[in-house]
């Protein structure tokens, strides 16, 4: 599965960078996230409950951060195991570019899906991944949206 996208975050690059490495921020923004712990040096561990097409599962995953060039770019590598539901593993390359209205975040994801997810969910993986990314960034962007006091 491959996915590319670009988001404009209304904040300076340094703030976006810090938020991306904050386990509390990630817990709030990752859809279905139950637990998130860790730090940029040791990596993060997370528990996420999600339903992909007909497959519902609790995924336990570990993510490590590589090639960190603050506040410009980093690579995430990780694997999420959903037990009988299968697994997903892969990486995402993230680059931050400051622009007039904030920071452009480009992401390039490459993931491999296995088990029941691949068998039953293959036809919906791409749309599911896009939906997850959209939800994540909607929440992530909202944190910086000063016109929204609830964030």
């Amino acid at each position, binding site marked *: 599965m491959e996915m590319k996208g670009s988001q404009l975050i209304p904040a300076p690059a340094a703030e976006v960078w810090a938020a991306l490495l904050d386990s509390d921020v990630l817990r709030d923004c990752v859809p279905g996230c139950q637990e998130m712990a860790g730090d940029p040096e040791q990596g993060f561990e997370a528990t996420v409950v999600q339903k992909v097409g007909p497959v519902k599962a609790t995924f336990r995953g570990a993510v490590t951060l590589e090639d960190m060039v603050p506040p410009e770019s980093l690579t995430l590598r990780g694997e999420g195991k959903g*037990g009988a539901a299968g697994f997903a593993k892969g990486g995402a390359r993230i680059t931050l570019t400051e622009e007039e209205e904030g920071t452009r975040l480009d992401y390039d994801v490459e993931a*491999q899906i*296995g*088990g*029941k997810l*691949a*068998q039953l969910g*293959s*036809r919906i993986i791409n749309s599911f991944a896009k939906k997850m990314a959209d939800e994540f960034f909607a929440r992530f962007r909202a944190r910086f949206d000063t016109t929204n006091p609830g964030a």
Partner: protein
Amino acid sequence: MVEKYGTAQSPVDLESEALVKGQGQYTDDIAPAGALHGVFVRSTVAHGIIRSIDTAAAAELPGVLGIYTARDLADAGTNPIMFMVPLMSADGKTPVPYVSTPRPALAGDRVRHIGEAIALVVADSAGAAQDAADLVEVDIEELTAHIGTRLSEDPVEDPIWDEAPNNQAYTWYAGDQEAVQATIAASPYKVTLELNNQRLAGSPMEPRAATASFDPESGRYTLYAGSQGTMFLRKGFADALGVGMDKVHVISKDVGGGFGLKVYVYPEYVAISVAARLLGQAVRWTATRSEALQADQGGRDSHCTVTGGFDADGQLNALYCDIIGNMGAYSIGIGPRVPSSVIAENIVGPYATPLIGIRSRGVHSNTIPTSPYRGAGRPETTYMLERLMDEAAIQLDIDRVELRRRNLIDREQMPFTNQFGHVYDSGDFAAVLDGAMASSDWAGFEARRAEAATRGKLRGIGCALFVETAGAYFQEPLDFRVTEDGMVEVRVVGVSTGQRHRSTITHIACSILGIPLDKVRYIAGDSDDVPVGSPTVGSRVGQMTGSAMHIAAHSAIERGRAIVGHLSSGQPNDITFANGVYTVAGTGETMAFLDLPRRLAEARAEGREIEETLDAVETFQSPGFSFPNGCHVAEVEVDELTGEMQILNYTAVDDCGNVINHREVEAQLMGGIAQGIGQGIMEQMVYDESGQLLSGSFMDYAMPRITEMPQAMTIVDLPDPTPSNPLGAKGVGESGTTASVSTVANAVADALRARGVTNLQTPLTASRLWEAMRTASA
């Protein structure tokens, strides 16, 4: 009474009504009181080393009674499942070596394909077992997965079997390789085609299911499981359990489709049987459709390069087939025989080709093992011959029907011993070709093509001739008895998986014995109760069991004549038999056939000593294969803009020998044609590079539906009876599939030829056709 078979046109159908009303008894309907439920934990990676299996969380769930892994099965004395039928040389005399692939019932240290069973969870409900199975954590260290039907010349990383550094399963040759190559090289025209037979899923409507129990007193296992006949299953099952054949009792009741995949023992049957023994209670398991796609034996999956050397006048001088057969992770059933010896048995086809050579190589991959699927090598063989004929016709600029005609074996040459030693005892191939041309109005096709073009449709027509082997195993026993309550009891091995065997065999019995259809008890599928014989494979039951029935009924009439002689004042020569009744000449005394056992018992009770009985086990012995043959024609239209294809007309002219009942022949042909169309235009198992199964449900594995079937179908019987059995029947179970893959492919190729499309590979989906047209016109 029924009409004499061979003339009946109305169906004799004793089975369908109960099945469609839900009154059948399929394996999942068999639920002994207190039976427990088993659910399997399966591998989510294609190739890897099992580092740990954590069952602790699962074991704590309420209702869970046992969780079993490879270690438990080993402790219980089980053995791996071994390949049963040796791979033999083309003459059948010398064993050909192949890689030994012991297949565990539960994977212990290594997994070799997605869906391979790793653990069995048994609970008091299916739901509890499933919930617990979801909690079993298996840690697998991944190895390089090997996917695809290709062979590396060099050793590969992480070979599937240490014995096979490049994953090669076997190498097999037939024919004089050098003479064939030299003749092709010297021929003025050399035509080569690469043909891929994609992986298929057998997909019977009834998924596999099993119920196992163990009786400690007798030390016997009882297994209920749908099969095509319990004999091979029983042998493999006993071997895997590490017990003698006398310690297993295998029963198949109603079976909803087999197609080759319900012949041999499967890992699940062994695992639930051990669990049943350890728990002291019956254990049931029924596959989900998702499990069926992951764990049922796969079909087809071979890559064929076929080369023909032709004269300028179209004579095929020599033919060479180079085949790579994908065995999957393990060699099972008759897997390695399908792309090798079965090809040799069928490759001569209807043509008088002087020289034929075959090289077949097997490759292991991290996929489900393959073994026969309806046709099992016959559709692949026909595909090579008939695609080659069409391509040669283009290159030689000879009409494709005329080219075939010039190469046909003549009826006058029968009996014809072919290059691989098989004897065609009958078969008029020119007649089936002529019949198909006439029935399909082949001559009038160009006008229909021109009309279609005005609607933006590319219309094409294609034909395929075939000759295939049928019979599979040449001995067929049948246990014939008549009971004191006046019923004929027939015990046979082959289990009907939807072919209405009971109707056909009962029809034959009643026609000969002159008794009503409801006076026959047909007994099949219980290994304790039927003679040792062969399962329902290779289009064999009509001709083989039917012939055994014919012999048994006639011999019983003769024994009955002697019995009537004892019971009456008449001499056997004076006793006539008609319509189920013996008549003693002179006295006019009559006795019904079905009354004889009762009368015998009475006579014996009165102290008379009469040794004769109506009962006997009769065995029919066939001299070899029979050779069903035919010619099919398909007419298709392809939408120029979308690639969407519709099969308009399909004509099948078949010589399956004498027809016992046309409606049954028609049903077999239609079903077979539908399965071939599935391969031709839509079905395909898809694994990604890492061995993940992407076609894991019927959302992604495209099963043919009524909308894909031909708009009109014409089925014509053109029998040229075989003298090799008393019925003159040749078999028809596989003919439809054998012919239809090639027939449809040739029609589509004809439709797209005008657009410059030359290379087409099945499945011929709309997207592939669109892509092919776009690439060709670019």
